[in-house]
């Protein structure tokens, strides 16, 4: 097996697991969102890697310049991932604004403090 051949995919897995771990393990809400972003970025890398065709060039028709070029990279995943990036940005924006509201209400963005407050509230009822 050629080393660089699957290198990208190893990076994808490392990024994915790192992000996933941060989402699960960190109590700070901002860090959770950072983790979520790392997690999503791994998917972007994954899509872009898979569109690469060995020996292929950018899939742009340039009259006069691309003579003799027969192999292009697959452009579709790029397009798809642009959409996914937009979605990820929107998710992050929404998450951050939720965090702002949470801080206003709870005075904290640490999950354990928030849960402690919520438990108190439940006992009050």
């Amino acid at each position, binding site marked *: 097996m050629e080393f660089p051949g699957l290198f990208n995919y190893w990076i994808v897995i490392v990024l994915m697991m790192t992000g*996933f771990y941060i*989402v699960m393990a960190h109590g700070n*809400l901002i860090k*959770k969102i950072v983790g*979520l972003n790392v*997690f*999503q970025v791994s*998917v972007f890398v*994954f*899509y872009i890697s*898979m569109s690469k065709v060995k020996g292929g060039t950018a899939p742009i028709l340039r009259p006069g310049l691309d003579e003799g070029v027969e192999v292009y990279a697959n452009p*579709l*995943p790029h397009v*798809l991932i642009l*959409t*996914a990036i937009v*979605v990820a940005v*929107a*998710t992050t924006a*929404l*998450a951050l604004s*939720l*965090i702002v*509201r*949470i801080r206003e*209400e*709870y005075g904290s963005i640490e999950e354990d403090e*928030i849960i402690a407050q*919520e438990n108190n*509230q439940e006992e009050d*009822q």
Partner: protein
Amino acid sequence: MIAANLPILQVIAPLLSAPLCVLLRRPGAAWAFALAVTWASFAIALTLLSQVLESGPISYEIGGWAAPFGIEYRVDMISAFVLVIVSAIGSAIMLFARHSVASEIRRERIYLFYAMYLLCLSGLLGIAITGDTFNLFVFLEISSLSSYVLISLGQDKRALTAAFRYLVMGAIGATFYIIGVGLMYMMTGTLNIADLAVRLPAVASTTTILAALAFLTVGISLKLALFPLHAWLPGAYAYAPSMVTAFMAATATKVAVYILIRILFTIFGGVDVMAGMHVGVILTGLAVIAMFAASTTAIFQPNLKRMLAYSSVAQIGYIILGISFASETGLAGGIIHLFNHAVTKSALFMVMGCVVLRVGSVNIRAFDGLGARMPLTMAAFVIAGLSLIGIPLTVGFISKWYLILAALEKGWWPIAVVVVLSSLLAVIYVWRVVEAAYFRPAAADAPEISEAPASMLIALWLMTGASVYFGVDATRTLDVALGAAKLLLVDRI
């Protein structure tokens, strides 16, 4: 002209109406506009269903680009059925929404609320109608993002954390889904669902496709709150505005189930995933645990919205159980329960909305003596509750009948026993409320309250009536469910 473009209108009408709704700004006008759009969607969905029933699946090419290169909208029996469920529930809920939203959402935010609602609706409808896996992801995110916002608008501050948790889980689920789609694309070079179905069997035994199946199933299971991935659901349902809970409980998880059905029976339809890859057994096991664990948890909840949320997790277990049988009867049972549970649960959450409006709490103590104080609302609760249990002449009975039938057909009688036992757990949590409402006197200092406003009662009784009507004469819904199951399993188109 319009008739030919119905599939795209189904999605685009609510999608474009959302920004228009923002322009309206006045709460009353925004509500009326959203109501009109939702009802129009419902009319379109009904037309599509009748067209499909008459002349088979409809394929619509966006922008004239033919599939598999362009995005295809495809309406077959099951997607038309899901479209009708979503838009029907949406229409009834809009009727319900006016007073409920006015009392729970700050006035200056109401028009934004309805804009978000329309976005969510168009996302859900889009999921059901699209024939393209990536387009499906986009719609999934449209509906998810708007539903995070809708949930976070709940009055209780815990709505914010619930929305945040749902956001994290939802984003992970959607990312898993997109990884699965990418893996399938690597092996087949297509994103079109029908095309994938044709090309997958050739490469089905590769690790890549196995991984794709795993990512897709886990990702969607997160969205549909399959046990043990349901942790986000109780909080989100408990603290969201009443109208949002009623809408989400009846539609969002159901649409996610639809995606799962599509993946397992259409995309992987040519591959023996249920038996050969043991997906069936895993789903059966999880479904059975969901039915028991969630029903048992529901019994101990003092907050009744949370109780109903746990009940939803259990009911999703029923649906998944039906699907996991991978037999015509079982799949039909799952699909019919999709409809039946949507109708029943939206009625139950509407009751909660009425009680929140008049009493201001959904704690079980708040229900003391409500049987006499809000007779129409509580009568609806009793009927819908009986449907949840599965008493004959309600839709719940039809679902139970088919699920037990499917289990017995396979000779899996322990599963049949489990189905009835978990419906007996439902007796306990439903009856807890009935006893509070009818046997406990209202607290001495309880304020005088009147019945909920007429518009809310009409919506509530529409759903309650539907859960009786389709339980008495189930032939129509069953025709569709059985037809859809046959299409998915036998004809495979």
